[in-house]
């Protein structure tokens, strides 16, 4: 068997294990599905009249606008959950056994990222289904639907790499868990939940530069407004920035962990 095929088998096995782990432990799945869904329900019902504000963009309904925010929230929390799971694996010595096994070290992290990507895609399907049931329209049609699933899956993998970096550096689940509130800081300082022009300062200014705004707007476009290459490319750029930072930090943290023994 070639090296690449062996690596892919290990990635698939580790990915399957991580997905099973998420479904068996409600504390891992709740942040990805339950809380973003509740938040979506509250935002839509509580701030639904926002579409009557003079400068709010013309949309079919506030739910259409909010879906992207919930998906981005879900992917960020999926990234943190992936980090927590990896840190727990470090705490119980599972990662040490993998390091001693004849597999490439990067494969250990890639297996976790593939699982996070799968969970991201499932989260996108969940939110799109919930949205359609409750009356949302997907302006981009079937291609728009598929594009959203793809972007959300990639976004989850990018945030998973950041979670993995934190887990590899700290080796403690409690430390990774501590960044949960920061997820919301990043989200609130972006256009994930509301149009940029309608945010209060300083959030409005920060949102102009926050990669999360590019990602959220790229995911929102096919749902609320229709297909747009420019927004898709910006979303991919945002995902690329987050993923590159996460990959660099993960690689550095893994090397540091291996050096320290």
């Amino acid at each position, binding site marked *: 068997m070639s090296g690449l095929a062996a690596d892919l088998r290990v990635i698939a096995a580790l990915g399957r294990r991580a997905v099973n782990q998420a479904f068996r*432990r*409600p*504390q891992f799945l*709740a*942040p990805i599905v*339950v*809380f973003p869904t*509740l938040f979506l*329900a*509250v*935002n*839509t*019902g*509580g*701030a*639904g*009249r*926002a579409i*009557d*504000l003079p400068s709010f963009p013309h949309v079919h309904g*506030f739910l259409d606008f909010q879906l992207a925010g919930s998906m981005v929230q879900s992917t960020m929390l999926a990234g943190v959950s992936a980090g927590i799971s990896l840190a727990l694996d470090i705490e119980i010595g599972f990662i040490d056994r993998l390091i001693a096994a004849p597999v490439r070290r990067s494969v250990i992290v890639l297996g976790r990222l593939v699982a996070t990507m799968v969970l991201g895609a499932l989260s996108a399907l969940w939110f799109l289904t919930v949205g359609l049931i409750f009356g949302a329209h997907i302006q981009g049609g079937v291609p728009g639907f598929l594009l959203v699933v793809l972007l959300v899956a990639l976004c989850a993998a990018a945030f998973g790499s950041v979670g993995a970096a934190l887990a590899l550096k700290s080796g403690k689940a409690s430390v990774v868990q*501590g960044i*949960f*509130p920061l997820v*919301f*800081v990043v*989200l*609130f*300082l972006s256009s994930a*939940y*509301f149009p940029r022009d*309608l*945010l*209060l300062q300083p*959030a409005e200014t920060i949102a102009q530069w926050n990669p999360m705004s590019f990602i959220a707007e790229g995911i929102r476009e096919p749902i609320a407004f229709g297909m747009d290459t420019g927004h898709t490319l910006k979303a991919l750029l945002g995902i690329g920035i987050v993923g590159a930072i996460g990959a660099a930090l993960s690689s550095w943290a893994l090397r540091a962990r291996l050096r320290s023994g």
Partner: protein
Amino acid sequence: MPSRANLASVWALMRKATNEVVRVPGAAIPGILAPTIFMLGLTSVFGKLTLLPGFATDEYMTFILPVSLMQGAGFTGAATGVNLARDIELGWFDRLILAPPPRWVLLTGTVLSASLRALMPITVLLIVGFAFGVNFPGVGGLALAVLLSCAFAATAASWGVMLALRFKTQSAAPLMQAGIFMAVLFTASYAPLELLTGWLHDVAEINPVTQIIDAVRQGFIGNVTWGDTLPGLAALAGLLGLLYGLALRGLHRVGA
């Protein structure tokens, strides 16, 4: 009539919970940080909702601060349930249940410890809120807001304890937190009742926590009146009585 020994036991359990905060201060930070971030974040995001006709105030943080107080108190209460589940898993609860004090004393000490601990997020939220220009509700309004929030923490703790005794595992934590999340936010939390849309409007109308939030909020956006206070007090007393009763029933069933 509670005896002196029972009151001493209640106080000892409250001190145990506060000792945890003193000895592991890092554990208390998320409970303080999360509602503060939500208050500042929701104001940044939804602040312009005050431009909608019919909004009760032109300062969104003034409107949302009472919700954050309830959220902070509620999550502190839910954390009490998580801590009890941890004590059950570690076996400490088995030793506690063998102690001489009656079970209502054990429960009262546990839920009142949540009220005491809730003072931390409440204090931080009020300081941050006033620093960002939230209207001062007057001494009476402030006292009422703090009192109701602390009592809500005890209510949430009863909910958490009930679930901890039912499931006996920390894995039930998301259920404890989700229950509080829904109770607090499925109300007129983001906007006045008449501006809510769809099913949330109907749910908020029948959710008793709406009355409690209205009672906490009244001093911040207007005057404190008996008309707004009494429904809040009645709703809180009803919820606390119900959940405390269910938690006590669960406690009596342990080892029965």
